[in-house]
Structures are given as structure tokens and as C-alpha cells.
């Protein structure tokens, strides 16, 4: 095992001393940023500023991913998430999917723009035959082009909706994730209308996950950043909240190493080391985005 890079972590002495700590309980969820920050679109609210020219975090090699999966297996991981950027940009996505699904349940977080008929057919085959659950998380930020395209890009609405229809016809019901980027997407009424909309695309068992905005990355320029750098200073976490935070039960692996969670993969201070075992220690919630998880209840996993 490599030495954890503890000196890079915020500490009580050097930074905000009273942000609450989160103990690491176990590795329930392993996030693997297989595509790095490379994406085929550049969403205006992307919290890690991914895009077609975003090479800041490189794509992971097959060897790096397999190593992360093996380390996860040794730690008793329950579920794996493939993310990016856009995971389907990875040239070995099929090989990597087979590798992950042999270890644990797999969710691929995707914008669905590359899910053509042939890819969907292949995914349906994996879904049918895999021992553990394969899930797709498809991002769609509106029920109309006018609601979605200003944040996800021109003509993305039609393409995403078409891909959801293809998945439904193949028997796959994706989890559609919606970022609450405007008022019309907040509240139970919007949720109910969105469910009806997904049903109208031919999805008999629609699944939705609404996500609050993370005011970092490109979103900081679209609207604004957090009003308070760290609203958690002086806060005490109840055990119920602490135990359900992603950073209490999961870690993210990228080509750059192991990080506290998938939201903070671009923050050098959130890097915990090279190996997954380096991540088995408490962290302090010193980052501005942590307030979204604690105060708004964001949980990245499905």
C-alpha cells in the first residue's frame, strides 16, 4: 500500500478547524471516473467542468480500472458507478462493463448521446444475462428542449429522449436524473409531471432522481458560487446524517488517484492517496460543495 497523502488533506490546524468530520464506515460504493473529464458535451452546470476539450483528468486505462475493481472487491464493495465525463467515450467501455459487473452491481452515469441501437442492444444483453444489477443513469434536465437545451446544449433534448425510447424498447428502464437548475423543476408537482413525461416516452416503470445544483465548476459561472465558503463550520452532524453521506460509505477513483467523493475529484485537497485502502480514514467537510450534501440532502448514488 502506498502512503496516504495526508498532507494534502485539510487539517484542523491549517484550515477551518470546526467543520465536522465524517468517519469512513465501509466501502459500499466505488465511483470510477473511467472517462476522466472528457465529455461530448459541455453542460453549463457541470460541477467538474467536463467537455470535449477537457483533458484535466485523463481517461483511465483498462489496467487502472481493473486494479480499482480488484481493490474494491477485496474491501467488500457493494456497487460500482462508472462516470466521467461521458463513460461511453471510453474505447473499452464494453470490456470495462463486463469487468465491473463480474464484481458487483454496476451503474453507468451517462448523457445517453452515444446510445445508438447497436449499443442499446448490447446493453440489453448484459442486463438480461448479468448476475448483478446493471443500471443506467441518464441525465435529462427538462421536459422540453427549451428547458433542457440551454444547460445541456443545442439539440441534446431530442437525442436524449430518443435514446430513452430506445432503452425502453429494449426493456431497460434507466434512472433519469434531473438537476434542479430552474424553479420549474423543483417540488413534487414538477416531479409528478416529469414522471408522466418519462412514461410518455414508452418507459413503463419510470425512475427519477432529482439532484440539487452544485455551485462549483461551470455552474459558478452560469449563476453563482456558494454564498458562504463553508456553511458547515460549527455544525455538528447527527449520526443519521453522517452515516448516509457518500463519503462515509464510498470513495472515488480517477486516473489521478483516490478522492473523497465524485464531486471533489478536481480538488487536490480531496485526494486521499493512490490506493483505495488509503481512503479508509475520516475526512473533514472543509469544501464548499459539502454543504449541498449536508444541508440539501444530496446523495449521488441512486
Amino acid at each position, binding site marked *: 500500500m502506498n502512503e496516504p497523502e495526508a498532507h494534502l488533506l485539510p487539517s484542523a490546524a491549517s484550515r477551518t478547524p470546526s467543520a465536522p468530520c465524517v468517519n469512513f464506515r465501509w466501502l459500499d460504493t466505488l465511483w470510477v471516473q473511467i472517462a476522466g473529464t472528457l465529455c461530448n458535451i459541455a453542460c453549463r452546470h457541470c460541477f467538474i467542468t467536463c467537455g470535449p476539450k477537457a483533458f484535466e483528468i485523463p481517461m483511465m486505462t483498462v489496467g487502472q480500472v481493473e486494479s480499482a475493481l480488484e481493490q474494491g472487491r477485496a474491501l*467488500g464493495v457493494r456497487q460500482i458507478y462508472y462516470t466521467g465525463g461521458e463513460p461511453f467515450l471510453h474505447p473499452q467501455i464494453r470490456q470495462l462493463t463486463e469487468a465491473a459487473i463480474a464484481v458487483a452491481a454496476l451503474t453507468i452515469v451517462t448523457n445517453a448521446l452515444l446510445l445508438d441501437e447497436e449499443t442499446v442492444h448490447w446493453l440489453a444483453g448484459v442486463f438480461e444475462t448479468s448476475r448483478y*444489477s446493471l443500471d443506467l443513469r441518464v441525465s435529462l434536465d427538462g421536459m422540453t428542449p427549451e428547458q433542457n437545451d440551454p444547460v445541456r446544449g443545442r439539440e441534446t433534448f431530442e437525442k436524449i429522449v430518443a435514446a430513452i425510447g430506445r432503452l425502453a424498447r429494449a426493456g431497460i428502464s434507466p434512472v433519469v436524473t434531473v438537476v434542479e437548475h430552474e424553479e420549474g423543476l423543483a417540488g413534487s408537482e414538477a*416531479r409528478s409531471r416529469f414522471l408522466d413525461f418519462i412514461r410518455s416516452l414508452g418507459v413503463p*416503470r419510470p425512475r427519477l432522481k432529482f439532484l440539487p445544483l452544485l455551485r462549483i465548476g461551470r455552474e459558478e459561472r452560469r449563476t453563482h458560487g456558494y454564498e458562504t465558503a463553508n456553511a458547515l463550520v460549527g455544525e455538528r452532524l447527527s449520526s443519521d446524517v453522517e452515516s448516509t453521506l457518500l463519503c462515509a460509505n464510498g470513495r472515488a477513483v480517477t486516473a489521478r488517484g483516490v478522492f473523497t467523493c465524485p464531486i471533489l475529484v478536481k480538488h487536490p485537497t480531496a485526494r486521499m492517496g493512490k490506493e483505495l485502502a488509503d481512503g479508509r480514514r475520516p475526512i473533514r467537510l472543509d469544501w464548499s460543495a459539502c454543504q449541498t450534501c449536508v444541508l440539501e440532502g444530496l446523495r449521488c448514488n441512486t
Partner: protein
Amino acid sequence: MRAAFFGGIYSNYLGLAAALVDARRRGAEAIFCLGDIGGFGPHPDRSIELLRAHGIPTVQGNYDDAVGNAKADCGCGYTDPVDNHFARISYAYTLEHTSAIHRPWLANLPSRILFDAEGTRCLLVHGSPRQVNEFLWDSTSPDDFLEHLVSSADVDVLLCTHTGIHWQRALPSGRRVVNVGALGRPANDGRTNVWYALMDTDRSEPFEFVPLRYDHQRLAHEMRQEALPEQFVETVLTGWWTTCLEILPAKERSRGKF
């Protein structure tokens, strides 16, 4: 030796009464309950009284802990607002209709029971050995994860419930995990019967799941009389889950109607 294991009762006292008769008819010398006695169905006291009258060793579920200690919510572990909406209705009804004399009993139930079945060490928990409301689904519980759980607990067989859908697996080590399912509501398979697990240590495959018919029409009628949500009643009458769907992994969800 034969033993029966009942999961999530969810106030289905009619199913529980039928299961007690059925398990004894099948030769069960010991009967255990893995918790979550209340919730979903009507008249929560009736299930508690049956378990207490028959002296059934019972593990504390998250619902039992919540009701016994008058907590703010059921602690089921849902993350979806619709699931939580129905969970709140169910919990408020159960809390209101569980009499004070039973609450200390619920509050003091053990979080686990170790049971030696002729040399086979069995651990009975509600969710998982590490968390009362952890969902152990078949499709999201990899072998290595389960090996981790059973070896940490140092047992041969881990028995759990909490998900409402039964399954079992023999692990590469030879240890075994059995999710005993639930007596409280059908298994989202379009059938109105409920399920429990029966162990026979003389058999090479010691665990079998027993489908149990009970008077589900009467249960539905009583649920309506108590003004419980029609969505709950529909599940009892059709065998398809209509609520708590967001917790289902993709594979299990694809087998249901909704």
C-alpha cells in the same frame, strides 16, 4: 431439525397466524421472527400479541425500534420523496395504533439472535449485521461483499429480511445467506400469497421458501376500514408493489408491474 423464519410482518396478523399453523404442520420445532412487525397493514397490536403469546424469539427491525421508542420516522432508509410520503402515512398510523403496553417490548427486542442449528451457526438480523436498515437484494449483494459480512460475523448462515423479496445463495466458502422474505406483503410477483423460509438440517439444500396463502381479501377489507392508502390495498389484492418502488434495484424492478 426444522425451523421456520418469518420476515417483515407489516401488521399482517392474518398471514402471521396462518404461518404459525403452517410452520408447525411442517414440523418446525423452532420459529423465529426477523422484525418489522408493524407498518403497512391494520391493527399492529394483533401481530405483536400473536408473537408474544406464542413466545416467538424476535429480532428488532427498524420499525420496531422506531415505534418502541416513539421515534420521528420509521427509519426504513428510503431516499425517494414518494416512498417517504407513503412511509410517513404508514408510520403515523402504526405509531398511533400500537398500545403503550407493547412499546417497551418492541424497544427491548435484540438487534440479532445467534442460533445453533445442530452445529450450524445461524445469525438472524433484520437488515444486515452492520446496519438494521440495509437492503440486501439478490442483484446488488455480490459474493465478496456477502463473504465479508458472514466472515466478520463468524457464522455459517446469515438470515435477514427488510427487502420484502426472498432469495438465498450458497457462497463460494460454503457459507450461506438467506433473505427470508416477508409475511407482510406479496413479493411483487403478481401472486397474492406471502413467503417464509423453512430450514431442515437433514436436507442437502437446507432452506426452502414456503408460499403461504392467507385471507388476503379480509386483510384488504380491514385496511380499507382503517382508511389505509388504497395503494397498499392494491398490493395485497394483486401481488404487485405500488409503493416503495424506488428502493428496488433495476433487475428486481424489471420483474414487477410498476
